[in-house]
């Protein structure tokens, strides 16, 4: 089935770009809804996305009601999609996404232009590399992201170093430690810029259990070494510096949506999330395009992304049936205070029962106080919260939205006086 010439044959109803949990869930849902030709385009030689190279167990409760390793989970998702009748095209790279659902793709056969009635972006996230973090110093080999580390170790059996420093304390940072342990690599330290570990308990206990010293409030101010990393210099909040000998650096987390196609294409991109601007149906600024999964915002679990994929699959099926409400009016949502981003960024009116049920928010820092939603002149919703950065906050859309209350929705936060 994968050898099908894409552009030939029947009209493509939906092309899904990216075959990770969100993309596969959307495609599978579309087939279950009876959509005729659904293709998933994945640039990797195998579909499945990031879980393919997470060799440890942590996946599948939501989708398969059991705990699986990443690769097994990815296989199950691919299998489910194929069984539903999804065409999966691997080693297929989308180079340009244009108006009217036209995609320029390249495969070993050369370039090809295809046309689909709807397109779903599900291109996921990647970690911020060294350059974008502006980490100074020399540029030896051995400075990599968790993604590269995991594909090296789990997919290719390579070992890039023996004694790395792990930078970051997000969930993925602990996944990096587990990956290291799998290859008998012994991290020598874990660093966190803020004064507390980002990931929640019990992951946060893991390094101590493994005997890895954790430095909080420490940032990397230089990497040393000519061919291979020799040391990192770290600085604490009071400006004191120390050198840690190591032979590698794993830069974990600080995820950013892989939105290159949207950024260099014609869709409106939200600088706050780094992903395309969507309404509550996952619809982009060009209504032929939808977006789902971690591309919408950094970063959620595979299970969460899968759920979002299913939802957008449903929305696109509705749309093809002519049952998705066209947007008569749009309410943009603005943020003030220590709020990093909100998804969706706009609400299409009139409201219908379908679509995302919640706004997803993130805070830029730890904060305690009251979260408000203001629509026009009125405060329509508020709640006391205690927030941590990189933790999901949800606001139920229907709880605050009034059809005729005003055209401006603002989410704001007032800290509790200390």
């Amino acid at each position: 089935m994968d050898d099908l010439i894409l552009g030939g044959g029947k009209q493509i109803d939906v092309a899904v770009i990216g075959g990770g949990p969100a993309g596969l869930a959307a495609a599978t849902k579309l087939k279950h809804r009876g959509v005729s030709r659904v293709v998933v385009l994945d640039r990797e030689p195998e579909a499945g996305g990031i879980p393919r190279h997470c060799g440890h167990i942590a996946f599948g409760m939501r989708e398969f009601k059991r705990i699986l390793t990443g690769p097994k989970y990815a296989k199950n998702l691919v299998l489910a999609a194929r069984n539903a009748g999804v065409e999966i095209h691997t080693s297929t790279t989308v180079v340009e996404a244009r108006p009217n659902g036209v995609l320029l793709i390249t495969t070993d056969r050369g370039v090809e232009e295809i046309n689909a009635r709807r397109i779903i972006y599900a291109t996921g996230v990647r970690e911020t590399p060294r350059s974008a973090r502006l980490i100074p110093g020399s540029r030896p080999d051995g400075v990599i992201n968790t993604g590269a580390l995991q594909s090296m170790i789990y997919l290719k059996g390579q070992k890039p170093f023996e004694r790395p420093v792990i930078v970051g304390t997000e969930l993925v940072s602990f996944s990096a430690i587990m990956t290291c342990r799998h290859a008998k690599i012994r991290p020598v330290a874990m660093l966190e810029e803020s004064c507390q570990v980002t990931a929640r308990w019990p992951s946060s206990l893991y390094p101590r259990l493994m005997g890895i010293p954790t430095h909080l409030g420490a940032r990397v101010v230089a990497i040393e070494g000519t061919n291979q990393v020799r040391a990192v210099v770290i600085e604490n909040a009071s400006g004191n510096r120390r050198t840690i000998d190591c032979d590698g650096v794993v830069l974990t987390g600080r995820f950013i949506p892989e939105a290159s196609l949207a950024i260099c294409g014609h869709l409106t991109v939200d600088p706050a999330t780094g992903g395309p601007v969507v309404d509550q149906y996952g619809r982009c600024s060009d209504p032929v395009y939808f977006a789902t999964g971690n591309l919408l915002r950094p970063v959620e679990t595979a299970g969460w992304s899968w759920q979002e994929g299913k939802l957008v699959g449903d929305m696109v099926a509705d749309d093809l049936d002519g049952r998705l409400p066209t947007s008569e009016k749009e309410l943009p949502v603005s943020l003030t205070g220590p709020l990093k981003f909100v998804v969706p960024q706009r609400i299409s009116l009139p409201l219908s029962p379908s679509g995302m049920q919640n706004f997803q928010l993130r805070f830029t820092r730890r904060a305690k106080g009251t979260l408000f939603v203001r629509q026009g002149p009125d405060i329509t919703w508020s709640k006391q919260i205690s927030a941590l950065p990189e933790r999901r906050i949800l606001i139920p859309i229907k709880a605050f939205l009034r059809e005729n209350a005003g055209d401006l929705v603002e989410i704001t936060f007032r800290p509790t006086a200390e």
Partner: protein
Amino acid sequence: MKSSRQLPPSPTQTAINDQVFDIVVVGAGVVGCAVARRFVLEGATVAVVEKATDILDGASKANSAILHTGFDAPPESLELSCIRDGYREYTEIHTEMGLPLENTGAHMVAWNDEEAAKLEAIVKQAHANGVEDVKRIEVKGLFRREPRLSKNAAAAIFVPGESIIDPWSAPYAYLRQALMNGGQIFLSCEVTGGDFDGSEWHLETSGGTLKSRHVINCAGLYGDRLDTALLGTTEFNITPRKGQFIIFDKAASALVNSIILPVPTSRTKGVVVCRTVFGNVLVGPTAEDQESRSDTSTDEAALNALISSGVEKFPDLEGMPITAVYAGLRPASEYKDYQIEAKPDLGWITVGGIRSTGLSSALGIARHVYELYTEQGPKHSAIAKPSVPQAVVLAQKGDRDWRCKDHGEIVCHCELVTSREINQALTGPLGARSLSGLKRQTRATMGRCQGFYCSARLTELTEGHFKTPPSDEISHG
């Protein structure tokens, strides 16, 4: 080392064959590559020795990738005439070699009255330098050409000839042409000493002895040291000048049309903002004198200053993701002009102090050096129909391999590098033998994700090709 590949012959073997080359070029930077090409085309037998595993590993590995016209070069300098000749020759050969040339033009922008007052003299100088199309333009015209430029611009001149090129494919093509027409390259081969017996040099290298009638010192950052080591004296001293650069995401390229030059100071041309042929936006370089000839580390303050400088000029660069940061070293000396000198009695030509315009002037320098050489007497007959190499197309607007059939797979997704391109870059006498060499030849891992997606596949594809794979260093270290 796991390498099972055929490495280029070591000089020891050549010495056993007893070949006496007309010329040994020491150093395979952009200047060495261009010089080797010129001498081969003129009919000389040429060997190039390079101490690194890959060519372009010193000053030539990092620059602003601009082909300069010479409009602002010091009047009546050797640098000026080499830039003019180099510019001319590049525009003549780039089509048949498949080298990119994007004629963006440059605007030298004054940001205050003091700078604006200097522009008239710069235009006059440009005309005296032979670049006659340089002219003052109204700021209205500037904003028409550069709609996203900060409205703080006070005055500008337009330099139509300034262009952007690929800083690596050009020197690779020069050297490839030399090799296709009889030249030889010895990599990982450092010159350690040597003697001149009145007619022949016996150069001691880390790979064995090489014999030649003439030596051309193109050792860049080590040019003075090579002179001292082999001649006992040097007429200039290299003081490396570090230049740090910031590369913005490809999305930024929609903001910038031309090369935006500052009004120069006596010391440096200043920080440039321009597109690259690969589709990014570059901001740099800084100019920092330092002792070390190898330290290309970056520092936080300089990088932040470059970002601010870019944002000041193009406010929409604010918040734009950074794709890469790097630093290069220019082989500056205590003299303003190039230090190119022949020592006829010693069969030696020094090509030193090529401070920041080497990419533009290399082909011109090569012609100048060949003239100096023939003044010493030797005669060769030029190759009648030299073979012409075809450069690998890496420029974004070019006919990249991913557009063609049977490319294998896309390995580096951000820069759309195919497995066929990787395999090609690993073979032949200039086959990549380090990751940085491979990057310069293919652009793999040089995009947004900096290897997040492709590092593992790339390590697999390059297995056994690199001189010191990181994993080997670890297990032996």
